[in-house]
């Protein structure tokens, strides 16, 4: 926090699955621990440049069925807002966060079309398409110009956890979508969080930063699908999405073009 080390945690372990039983211990794998140490060292210079923020670096080195991966995520928080980024994008996203933290709402919250900037539509689709898919929800009609690549794979946060079918990433594209920027609109720049309730089919999105300030959207998937009216450009990387389900937090890289929905407030 502001350049001082506040917390440091090392966790390691091994899980072996036999049918429907998993045996997990905190066994140490030197190779993976070394990979973590090296990734943390690599992230230090980046973190040092984010001196005005609260920064949390998480390195996960895993080996599953012979496949080794090392993933570094950096959560940067300023003034109650946060982004989740990678070492490659941390400086850019930190600057974006500083800008957003200093911004003020320029209009009142009211029923206006919403322009989803900075790839933030990917969070809407993460809940309405991704989580709905995890729960095997019935399909709803999405616009024909929209494609969403959101594969599911068994994932777990730690060796103590049961693997669940989870999103590995989400990339949304538009092909031939209409686009007309409304004169009166709310521009959404950063999302605080979201949720999908499989019992009610309701998606909740908590907007952290917009031209109308923070607000909450609660609509069914069908209503959200019907509200998607326009999109433009290539998918934009959203600065961070930590997905929490069943208490397991996982990073899901998320991209979406600028999209417009009809009023959802």
């Amino acid at each position: 926090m502001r350049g001082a080390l506040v917390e440091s945690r090392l966790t390691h372990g091994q899980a072996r699955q036999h049918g429907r039983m998993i045996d997990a211990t905190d066994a140490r794998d030197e190779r993976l621990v070394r990979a973590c140490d090296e990734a943390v060292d690599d992230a230090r210079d980046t973190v040092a440049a984010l001196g005005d923020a609260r920064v949390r670096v998480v390195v996960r080195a895993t080996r599953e069925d012979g496949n080794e991966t090392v993933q570094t995520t950096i959560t940067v928080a300023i003034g109650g807002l946060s982004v989740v980024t990678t070492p490659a994008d941390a400086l850019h996203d930190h600057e974006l966060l500083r800008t957003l933290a200093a911004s003020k709402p320029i209009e009142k919250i009211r029923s206006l079309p919403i322009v989803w900037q900075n790839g933030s539509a990917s969070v809407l689709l993460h809940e309405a398409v991704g989580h709905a898919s995890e729960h095997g929800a019935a399909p709803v009609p999405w616009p024909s110009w929209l494609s969403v690549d959101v594969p599911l794979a068994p994932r777990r946060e730690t060796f103590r956890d049961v693997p669940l079918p989870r999103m590995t990433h989400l990339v949304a594209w538009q092909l031939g979508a209409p686009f007309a920027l409304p004169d009166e609109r709310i521009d959404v720049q950063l999302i605080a969080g979201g949720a999908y309730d499989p019992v009610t089919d309701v998606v909740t999105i908590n907007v952290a930063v917009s031209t109308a300030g923070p607000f909450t959207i609660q609509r069914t998937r069908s209503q959200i699908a019907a509200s998607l009216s326009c999109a433009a450009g290539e998918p934009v990387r959203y600065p961070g999405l930590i997905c929490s389900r069943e208490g397991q937090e996982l990073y899901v890289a998320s991209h979406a073009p600028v999209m417009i929905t009809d009023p959802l407030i």
Partner: protein
Amino acid sequence: MTDVYRKWGRVIRYENGMTIRVEEAGEATERDGTFRTAPIESPAQTGVSVPHVDSFVAQTGVSVAQVEDFVAQTLLSVQQVDSFVAQTLLSVRPCTIERLIVSAGIARHETNGVSWTEESRRVHISLTNPPLRVLVDQASFDLASIETIANALGRAGHERKPPSPLRLAPNVAAALLPSLTGELAMEQSGGGLDGKGQPIETRAVTSDPPPNWYRPGYTVRPIRAWLNLRALPFGRVDKSAPLAVALLAPVDGTMLRVLCVDGEDVFPATVDATRIAAVSGDAPVWYPYAAGSFGVEMML
């Protein structure tokens, strides 16, 4: 100043159709404002845990035989967890199980020259009868309460205004209690040791900083908290009043969304539980809400 805390633990957990056995040991230190945690290393680089742990024995002076004996006494077995899960799955046929997590564990703690052992049992079940979902958390393998709630959920009708008076079942009252700190006369129930090895003494809960520390795991920085809250009995609970048997959503401040039973009628309602009219003097039951909360019937 350095604060060192060590924990050896073993847990068996049923979750999402899988049974998982976890053994681990870890250490937390706090020095000059920096909190660090890491697994406790053993020479063989194997899991350091109860019961078959050389380093545990070396560091605590407790023999393997003593530890194994203790483990046997805790009845910690996969069969026991599986048995409860199987019975639960059979008992909630009127509605659907959305989530069922059952665990049993033991942990050995050591800090500030004190060592102690704790056992725990936890059940979390989420039952649905769309559009309703009940949430049940308890610290015992008590099927009866789950069956009662499942049967009520299966008969649930439409939303109604909250009845007055309304009784809160012990499980509902326990979930509410942490939100009533400073609003309702309650005490911290004494017994056992806190996250820093200090005795938990019976104390009136006040707005002063709590005397004890809550440490739910070795990787979590301990915080001051009132432990094992218990509302002090007063007034008379009208046993004929409708009963809120379960939560339909997590407690939000003092707002409760609950499943109510009034004779043959079962319905969801949302109620502001700021004003408590009576607290039963019955023997309380401990629930795993916040840093521990004892539930007895309360009346609004």
